[in-house]
């Protein structure tokens, strides 16, 4: 039975049109674009280095300041204080200092360059499915409903899961959306400008190790620089000591101010780890007893030791965003309910990026086809077949010939509206930029997506799109009656539509 089914399936495969066969339009497209890695089209506000291996926030100025402060202070310590201390006291001091310094640097770089636990945004299918479920719950109202929440009971506490409008997901508990990085981050602690990254589930232990080791390093340097100055002043007096080693003064000042803040921060985070809270939760007072007698932290493991072990030595989940993976272009797509045309050739992530742009392009092409058809008929030039290339997977009108422009799946009324807006802009561009008919008009068109178009209170009646644009262009092109200008405009329009 099973064999019969697979055999009949095999027969079906060979009789169906294979999508792998290269059409003239597809192969040049595939050869032209090399395979891109996913980080290149990452939607959040992040900086990527080393071909996606390193991930940071966009603003990294303060991170470089942190790096400079640490390097300069330690550099001065090793250069000016360590030789004296190694001779006078013990050579172990620079060794311990060196180890601490390397540990601090390692954890800092680890914190800054690691993905904090960014949640990838929902695919269009997922988002549509969630929207459908929410609509069912809300009773199918057309307008955008108030912020959506879902309640879940965790260990006896009722927790509200919020819907993220940017990422189109219901945020898991303890996740939060960072407005600076524009990402939802799991177990979001805070966004730290000093490390130039968010602190979340995947890099919290590195962050904690960093501030802990930095506190030790700061206290270490502070105490030994003071020791150095005291020993020198025994030898040659206090003022002379300061004169002999001016760098020590700078180090003392930096360390003095750092100690208060860094040690304080370490203490605070030690408390957070032992009670298994995030900075976010602590600031909001989510689990404080002030909110109610029955309010407790449902994530705590019960005792301090387990909480600490879980936070610092627990399993480290891998990155969910697969930065270095290649963008797949052959994922199966949901068949849209149009007249038999199917989407193919685009990933869902690409779709979410390109659909608006592509709808715009398709609408433009339809308008141009509609506009140039009567123009060319007037001109009497050779018939031009205006084709639309199947780029990026949005619904494709297919090959069209003169006189039969096929509208894209966007409503005809929208494209009519675009015709009224785009033709004047397009015409102006042609009269001004003779040599660049492609670049600027496309740039203009890019911004005029159907969503951005304000719908006028009284929409122009769109009986036949062809007829409508005919009247529009007839009114517009009368001033441009010179033959050469007219010809150039037509040529430009035709060129644009075949892009």
């Amino acid at each position, binding site marked *: 039975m099973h064999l019969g089914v697979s055999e009949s399936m095999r027969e079906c495969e060979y009789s169906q049109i294979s999508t792998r066969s290269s059409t003239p339009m597809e192969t040049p497209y595939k050869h032209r674009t090399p395979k891109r890695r996913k980080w290149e089209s990452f939607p959040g506000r992040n900086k990527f280095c080393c071909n996606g291996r390193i991930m940071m926030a966009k603003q990294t100025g303060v991170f470089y300041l942190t790096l400079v402060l640490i390097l300069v202070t330690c550099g001065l310590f090793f250069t000016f204080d360590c030789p004296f201390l190694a001779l006078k006291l013990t050579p172990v001091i620079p060794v311990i200092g060196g180890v601490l310094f390397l540990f601090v640097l390692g954890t800092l770089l680890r914190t800054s360059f690691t993905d904090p636990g960014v949640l990838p945004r929902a695919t269009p299918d997922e988002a549509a499915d969630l929207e459908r479920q929410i609509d069912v719950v809300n009773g199918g109202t057309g307008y955008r409903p108030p912020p959506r929440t879902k309640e879940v009971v965790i260990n006896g506490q009722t927790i509200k899961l919020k819907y993220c409008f940017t990422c189109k997901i219901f945020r898991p*508990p303890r996740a939060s959306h960072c407005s600076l990085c524009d990402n939802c981050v799991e177990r979001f602690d805070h966004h730290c400008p000093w490390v130039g990254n968010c602190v979340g589930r995947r890099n919290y*232990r590195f962050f904690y190790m960093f501030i802990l080791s930095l506190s030790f390093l700061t206290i270490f340097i502070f105490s030994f620089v003071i020791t150095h100055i005291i020993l020198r002043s025994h030898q040659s007096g206090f003022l002379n000591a300061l004169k002999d080693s001016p760098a020590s003064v700078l180090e003392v000042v930096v360390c003095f101010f750092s100690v208060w803040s860094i040690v304080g921060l370490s203490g605070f985070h030690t408390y957070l780890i032992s009670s298994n809270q995030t900075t976010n939760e602590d600031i909001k007072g989510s689990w404080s007893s002030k909110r109610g007698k029955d309010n407790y932290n449902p994530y705590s493991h019960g005792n301090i030791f387990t909480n600490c072990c879980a936070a610092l030595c627990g399993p480290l989940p891998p990155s969910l965003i697969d930065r270095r993976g290649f963008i797949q272009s052959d994922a199966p797509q949901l068949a849209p309910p149009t007249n038999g045309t199917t989407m193919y050739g685009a990933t869902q992530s690409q779709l979410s990026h390109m659909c608006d742009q592509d709808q715009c392009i398709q609408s433009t092409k339809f308008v141009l086809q509609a506009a140039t058809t009567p123009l060319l008929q007037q001109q009497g030039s050779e018939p031009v077949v205006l084709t639309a290339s199947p780029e990026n997977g949005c619904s494709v009108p297919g090959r069209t010939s003169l006189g039969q422009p096929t509208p894209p799946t966007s409503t005809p009324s929208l494209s009519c509206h675009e015709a009224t807006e785009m033709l004047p802009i397009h015409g102006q561009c042609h009269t001004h930029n003779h040599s660049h008919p492609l670049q600027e008009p496309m740039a203009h068109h890019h911004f005029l997506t159907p969503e951005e178009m304000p719908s006028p209170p009284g929409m122009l009646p769109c009986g036949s799109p062809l007829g409508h644009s005919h009247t529009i262009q007839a009114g517009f092109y009368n001033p441009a009656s010179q033959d050469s200008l007219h010809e150039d405009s037509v040529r430009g329009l035709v060129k644009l539509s075949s892009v």
Partner: protein
Amino acid sequence: MAETHSLQDMRQQAAVAAKVFIQRDYTNGTVCHFQTKFPSELESRIDKQQFEETVRTLNNLYAEAEKLGSQSYIEGCLACLTAYIIFLCMETHYEKVLKKIAKYIQEQNDKIYTPRGLLLTDPIERGLRVIEVTVFEERSLTR
């Protein structure tokens, strides 16, 4: 051979009728756990017991990955002592379990889901948010 050939071609040529998403279940906290409730769209395609068994096995595998046991503690302490440099050479326990999960899903697809016109997508490809079940149209199977 024939099975993998048909699997690949199914993915490319068969039209997708629907996509069913199994959401996460947070009642046990932030651990990765998917809802075992059987979706109504799959009633005609697959046995309820079989589907729930798949989801339950996946949940157990994820629980194993995130378990706070002696192995994860040793790994964590060792990593801390070496300033996390060993993560550059060693694969973490979590990553090993994810590979196991990927193999399990591939197996399940080959044995159970593809012959019924379904396809399970590894949740890691969806950021561990959902288990995506692609339902292919019946027409290629009934021909």
